């Protein structure tokens, strides 16, 4: 029988499609629903130390080929997230706890709690383009990132992944720093810093003015990052950005991704996107006589 199972840094996933952070990931019940819809694993909303309201609305702009969002990292904070994890775990798929913080110590504290709550891995959000003091503001400096990875690795026994930003020319340097510090995987990409302006209102639409571009518009950027990362580091890569079909997943895997995440397509295509993609992947594997998806990871690098 064809299996879509993949191994991601030691975690077994029933299929390579993970829910991306920030989409339906704030509450246990919504995470559970995504598991039921067929996702191979779940990444939580990026959780911080304290509850945060996020930015006032508008927090989202819809474009023909994607979204620009500036939610502002809303979330209940790590304490309250315990009960959400309890519920989410009923989905019986690995849960990756996404975390944001400004300094290594806070990342360590958060990661420890996430491990206690039963997370299968940690994803460090070093890449949010629109929250002051967090995310990409720390994620563009290889040294700072190395320090964070070292600290978090020292504090937990589960795999630690770093989610990186494409908004820098230093992506590969940062990724090498993650690998050197013992990080277990790279997740790429987070959103591309962008903006939308209303001509009638003569002002930026988003409350935060700038936000992050996601969806099909950024697929080419994500593919390029994954392809370049595959050539630069040996740890596994998780591809994210504009994935809406099994073909998109195959492109990412051929570029070098061991697994993928899906965010915007949940809004644009609906929750059925997970099962539809898995169906398409299975068909592809049968047609091409593959026994494991591992066989296609990185094949686009051969010449």
């Amino acid at each position, binding site marked *: 029988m064809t299996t879509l199972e993949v191994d991601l840094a030691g975690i077994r996933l029933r299929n390579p499609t993970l829910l991306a952070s*920030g*989409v*339906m*990931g*704030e*509450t246990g*019940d*919504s*995470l*559970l*629903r995504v598991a039921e819809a067929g996702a191979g694993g779940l990444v939580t*909303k990026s959780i911080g130390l304290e*509850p*945060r*309201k*996020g930015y*006032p*609305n*508008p*927090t*989202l*702009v*819809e*474009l*023909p080929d994607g*979204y620009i*969002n500036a*939610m502002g990292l*809303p*979330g*209940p*904070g790590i304490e*309250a997230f315990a009960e959400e994890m309890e519920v989410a775990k009923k989905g019986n798929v690995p849960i990756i706890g996404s975390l944001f913080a400004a300094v290594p110590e806070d990342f360590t504290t958060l990661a420890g709690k996430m491990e206690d709550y039963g997370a299968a891995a940690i994803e460090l959000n070093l890449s949010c383009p629109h929250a002051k003091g967090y995310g990409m503001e720390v994620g563009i400096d290889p040294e700072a990132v190395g320090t964070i990875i070292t600290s978090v690795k020292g504090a937990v026994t589960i795999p630690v992944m770093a989610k990186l930003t494409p908004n820098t020319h230093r992506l590969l340097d940062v990724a090498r720093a993650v690998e050197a510090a013992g990080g277990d995987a790279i997740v790429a990409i987070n959103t591309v810093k962008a903006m*939308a302006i*209303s*001509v*009638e*209102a003569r*002002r930026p*639409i988003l409350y935060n003015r700038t936000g992050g571009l996601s969806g099909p518009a950024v697929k080419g950027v994500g593919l390029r990052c994954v392809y370049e990362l595959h050539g630069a580091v040996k740890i596994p890569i998780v591809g994210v950005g504009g994935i809406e079909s099994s073909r998109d997943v195959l492109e990412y895997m051929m570029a070098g991704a061991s697994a993928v995440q899906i*965010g*915007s397509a*949940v*809004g644009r295509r*609906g929750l059925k996107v997970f099962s539809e993609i898995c169906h398409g992947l299975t068909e592809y594997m049968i047609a091409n006589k593959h026994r494991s998806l591992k066989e296609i990871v990185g094949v686009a690098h051969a010449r």
Partner: protein
Amino acid sequence: MLVETRVRERIESGKGITTLIFEAPMAARPGQFVMVWIPGVDEIPMSLSHIGGHAGITVKEVGEATLALSNLRPGDMVGLRGPYGNGWKLDAKRILAVGGGVGMAPIIPAVEAVGDRGRVDVAIGARNAGEIIFEERARAASSDVRVTTDDGSHGLKGTVVALADAMMKEKRYDMVLGCGPEVMNRFLLKACVENNVPCQLSLERLMKCGSGLCGSCVIDGLRVCADGPVFTGEQVLGMKEFGKCKRDDAGLRVKL
């Protein structure tokens, strides 16, 4: 996609309840909603009380954004995105539509869409006469429209749920549509179960993205914006959080 449009007409539909008709058209199903951006203020969900030719909403003043909306004048600009959500299913043979207060906003396009005065009855309720809206539109589209107010200032005195319960006992319906405050929805659901009539309820939760992404509007695992806002009675019966708690801006549970 954001549609930048202007207020074409402003109608005071009731006390503290204002209808805004926009220049932009909006092809939508009854029960769907739009995210309304008031530049410099906020962006909030509003049911479409008018669909087709010109989009229209009916807003009750409850806080900063609804106040700003209510004060808009013809020519003022707003941004609309949508329509979002599923809307009502209107294929039942005999429908009772129940609206509480501004809950009539998503109900009235459904009543009009049935397109057969004999197939749909309407129960309208509010605290007092000033808050009864769309009674005339309802009478134009239905041959049995009844009204209640808490203080008896217009129509029967009592709650709209009591009225709906009486109507269900008096006539045979095979579908109830309901929209109002969550406590009204809760009792209406109870009445429907007791009278063994299936129902659909339009629910509300805090909305940010409106597009099924952020998860801020969930009741249990269901997104009001993308899986609702209209849910079947069975779905609502299965909701642990319905009538009990909601989520705040940070995603923390708050008691209702």
